């Protein structure tokens, strides 16, 4: 089965690229291809340039279901990804303290995942991703498992993190509002097999975007119009499993 077809994309450094498309269009597959968790049957994923100094894991994911080890504390979950890269002792301690502070988790150092709310769990996952100082953050519907209010809070946090230290992000979502808030570039895919439908560029700085803003609403409507028929058709499709 062909999931993605004839797709050529350039991801720009230091900017957030949002990928949207109807359900089952291969967005998540595309993201797994980017990070080397999936092998393309044809075609290539190329990275150009060197990863920044101190980068332990250039292509780093934030997963929809958080993927935290339930038997490790918040600090232990961050520590996990440092241990294997030989970060030890005081350095490790400092890195953990730094990323937990940046994600507002400093007070939850020793908490277990089962004690945390969904939003906190995703903050831990973001802290873990920041700890390895990635060249590219691959975010796979990171806010989809959260309720609408928590989603707003985490979007603000992501914007604050990016503003402090711009990172290259690839952000897969089916939520058009998230794409309009976070994307410098929005890639619209068609339904399966996923092809490039359109690429929308957004010049407005992230900090100037607010929920309910008229031009963002207009953009969302435009994106929805691009996708509507496709989404309807995808919804009617029988899956061939």
């Amino acid at each position, binding site marked *: 089965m062909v999931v993605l077809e004839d797709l050529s994309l350039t991801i720009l450094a230091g900017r957030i690229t949002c990928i949207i498309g109807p359900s089952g269009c291969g967005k998540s597959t595309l993201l797994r291809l980017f*990070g080397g*968790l999936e092998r393309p049957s044809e075609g290539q994923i190329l990275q150009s340039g060197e990863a920044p100094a101190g980068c*332990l*894991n250039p*292509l*780093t*994911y934030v*997963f929809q*279901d958080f*993927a935290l*080890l*339930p*038997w*490790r504390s918040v600090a232990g979950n961050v520590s*996990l*990804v440092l*241990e*294997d*890269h030989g970060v030890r002792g005081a350095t490790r301690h400092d890195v953990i303290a730094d990323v937990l502070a940046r994600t507002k988790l400093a007070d939850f150092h020793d908490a*277990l*995942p*089962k004690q945390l709310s969904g939003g906190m769990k995703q903050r831990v996952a973001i802290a*873990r991703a920041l700890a*390895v100082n990635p060249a590219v953050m691959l975010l796979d519907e990171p806010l989809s498992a959260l309720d609408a209010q928590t989603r707003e809070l985490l979007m603000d946090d992501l914007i604050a993190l990016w503003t402090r230290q711009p990172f290259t992000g690839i952000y897969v979502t089916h939520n058009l509002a998230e794409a309009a808030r976070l994307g410098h570039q929005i890639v619209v895919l068609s339904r399966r097999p996923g092809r490039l439908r359109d690429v929308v560029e957004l010049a407005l700085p992230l900090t100037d975007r607010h929920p309910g803003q008229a031009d963002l609403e207009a953009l969302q409507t435009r994106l929805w119009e691009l996708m509507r028929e496709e989404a309807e058709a995808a919804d009617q499709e029988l899956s061939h499993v």
Partner: protein
Amino acid sequence: MSEAARPVQFRGGGFKPGMRRGTGLAVFILLIAMIEWGTRAGWISNLTLPRPSDVGLTFVDLWQTGLLWDHLLPSLGRLIVGTLLGVTAGIGVGVLIGLFTYIRAGLVPLVAAMFPIPKIALLPLFVIWFGIGEGSKYALIALGTFTPTVVAAYGAVDNVDRTLIRMGQSFGLSWISIVRKIVLPGALPGILSGMRVSVAIGIILLVAAEMLGAEFGIGAYILQAGSLYDLERLFAGVVILSALGVLTSWAIGMIERRVLRWRV
């Protein structure tokens, strides 16, 4: 026009067995009291069941003469050594089956073939292989605890959340780290609940092995009592075995509560 307002009837609840402390103990005491009463009043003949108070006296006697330890210590030694061998090997093989395709393909049918064999039937064979002494008893208990542990262990490895393993790979963790830090801790709940079954099977086989050739041990004690139709001593032995079962199950429960505190 408008009817009188009626409160909505509650129809949820139930289907949620809770914990009631002491209920189990009360059932025990009630049952023993019934038997005591029955044997004293005569509607239970003393050929059917021994009087619980006499079993108690036999037990006190066992304790005072020091015979209890003469029988219990060798039994405990056999149970511990045999179970330890069987469970360790079982976890090792089970985890390997869970991790490697070829080991799985090769060993799962073998384990399935070994599982239903009554291990007691193999005791004569073990006596030839490992001698009439402790060796054959260790081997019997080890083999008996091995198979259920293997099945529990590879099932537990299979059930480890794959998204956690993908996460480990995506952060560039080495294979050995993924096994040590993600697969093994993730499989621990399943392995521990398998151990409950394994240890119980170990106790059953311990008695079987001791019945077939041992001077001392709970099994030997029960066998002697049985051949003399000494019901008090027979039941004293059975009570010791039950206590052993409750004790090991409690110990595993303690370990679970300590190690699996992270469970939701």
